[in-house]
């Protein structure tokens, strides 16, 4: 049914965050089994042909995004630029991503620095969230990464985080795929 494919395309396009198969299924009142092959068909159409829009799997859902290789042109497009992450922020984010659920004290032990300010910033940016309280004296809060974290880095799920061992090799691949144009002070 062609109309269903059209609807899927429109929904994924109009949604303001990645749409999961489950949500598509409940929105369009069709079983996942009918929707999945159509999504895959759309992915083939968009991703195979040097188009300006790709249909990617991210954060447990589907979303249209532009291909990485076009980024130099697209950066000029919108006035609002995202803030760059400080090294402290990235380090903290990495620790939280891999060790979640993790307390502030654990993060600070590893980094050797007070990390309250950085963690507050990450909370405000919605990149991390409170998962609960740890069942130890003082009941400290435990933190983990959020859906927005996956969206930011285009990760389909937390399982897709680069494994700690493999990153040195992955590094090289990435360096090839994305020539590290030294951020010419945008």
């Amino acid at each position, binding site marked *: 049914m062609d109309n269903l494919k059209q609807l899927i395309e429109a929904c994924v396009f109009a949604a303001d965050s990645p749409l999961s198969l489950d949500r598509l299924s409940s929105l369009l009142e069709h079983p996942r089994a009918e929707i999945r092959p159509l999504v895959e068909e759309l992915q083939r159409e968009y991703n195979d042909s040097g188009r300006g829009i790709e249909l990617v799997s991210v954060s447990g859902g589907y979303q249209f995004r532009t291909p990485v290789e076009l980024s130099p042109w697209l950066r000029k497009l919108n006035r609002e630029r995202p803030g760059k992450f400080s090294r402290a922020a*990235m380090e903290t984010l990495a620790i939280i991503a891999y060790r979640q659920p993790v307390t502030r004290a654990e993060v600070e032990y590893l980094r*050797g620095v007070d990390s309250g300010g950085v963690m507050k910033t990450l909370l405000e940016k919605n990149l991390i969230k409170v998962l609960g309280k740890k069942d130890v004296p003082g009941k400290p809060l435990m933190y983990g990464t959020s859906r927005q974290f996956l969206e930011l880095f285009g990760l389909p799920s937390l399982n897709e985080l*680069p494994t700690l061992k493999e990153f040195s090799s992955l590094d090289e691949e990435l360096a090839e795929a994305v020539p590290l144009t030294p951020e010419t002070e945008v």
Partner: protein
Amino acid sequence: MAFEIQLENFSGPMDLLLHLIKSNEMDVYDIRIVEITEQYLQVIEQMKLLDLDIAGEFLLMASTLLHIKSRMLLPVSEEIEEEEGEDPRAELVKRLLEYQRYKEVAELFQQLPQLDRDVFSNCLTAAELISGEELEDAQIVASVYQLAEALRVLIKERPPEVFHEVIQESLSVAVYIERILEKLTSARRLALRDFFSERLSRSEIVVTFLAMLELVKMRMVNVEQVKEFSDIWLSLAVPVEELSASTSEESLGYG
């Protein structure tokens, strides 16, 4: 040996330490503690000479290093060995190794394609993309944290008020709605903070805040925040001519 090192280039003492170990081509598993401690202290001293504030964490690491150094120079008594394990460096090494992993991942993260930096999605809201759709309520995506935070910050900035002084002032939301609209009529677009002058009392802040929420609910005011951390901006969502008609006290239901 001259050090061209600036503390602020390091994200913390672990980072500095790792840098020293690497530039001395040492094995993390077998740190030459005397050498490293000396160099570390030199860096700190230089910073002191330049009269730079050295964060407590850097000093804490210095004392940890000194402690390890002294333990390594002293003959090990059995008691201490039982208490702290064989190699006084062991804990630091473990921390360094783990820290190093995350430091590398952090660098990898920097290289991953980032949304809005390397890849882009359509950045408009659903209401703007769906043809034939009128703009829905200006909804704000937030967690409980964001909301509590907004209010807390506003209240925190006030000087403490005297308690027990119960002022039964009738602060009417409607009156504050009028004030906000007046300001917006002349200025068109104002930052949220512009509405909270120094002189406002706690209850006035709350009522002003409520008046804003009410205006957003009535779709008379747009609230926007162009990016994280930037100011929140308010602007009129309706033509000025329509204002007087819609905000009389009765229509709001506030007596």
